[in-house]
């Protein structure tokens, strides 16, 4: 095995990629579950309410908080990519990265505040 030294390639843009890919994959897996839950309404209000009561559980709330974070992260990361790929290149990109992280966190906090 060549190169025992840790790859020092792990700079900011690399982690932005990892976050974007992981959040995207998790969201893609979550989506069918989300639709299934909503379609419980077809079986009547009671069925959906039963499910919604389950979501009052604090652990579920925490998971929902995580989901909102993932959504906000994937969205703002995606906007950053659109800027890099489609707009004239500039050093704005680093500022966007910071903003992306900030907005993602803010959205999650907002949800948490509302949820509790």
């Amino acid at each position, binding site marked *: 095995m060549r190169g025992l030294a840790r790859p020092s390639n792990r700079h900011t843009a690399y982690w932005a990629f990892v976050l974007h890919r992981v959040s995207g994959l998790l969201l893609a897996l979550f989506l069918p579950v989300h639709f299934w839950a909503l379609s419980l309404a*077809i079986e009547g209000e009671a069925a959906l309410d039963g499910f919604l009561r389950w979501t009052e559980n604090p652990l579920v709330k925490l998971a929902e908080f995580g989901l909102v974070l993932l959504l906000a992260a994937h969205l703002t990361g995606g906007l950053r990519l659109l800027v890099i790929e489609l707009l004239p290149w500039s050093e704005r990109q680093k500022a966007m990265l910071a903003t992306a992280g900030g907005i993602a966190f803010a959205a999650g906090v907002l949800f948490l505040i*509302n949820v509790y």
Partner: protein
Amino acid sequence: MSVPAQTWLWIAQRASAAVLALAVSVHLVTVIYAVRGGLTAADIIARLQGNVAWLGFYSVFVLAAAVHAPIGVRTILAESLPRAPRLADAAGGVLMIVILAGGFRAILGLYGAG
């Protein structure tokens, strides 16, 4: 998959991303607003039932998601399993059908509920 087709996948991915950026923002704000004071089925149904505007909005949302998520998953699989490109394409196709079917079932169910 041919090179022009792969290029069109990239175009579709970016175009659907732009649509989703708007749709997700509206959806996030709506959810955050709706969750205040607890969420009930009645709230959700009341918002969507018989409402053509929301029906239209969520239909566009589902269509965009049905384009965007499968292409993303296909890319991940194509890179993780380079010796099984057909599997990646097939998985993308399956996810698209699942999202379209599940999404419209939920939307139409809520639109016509009650």
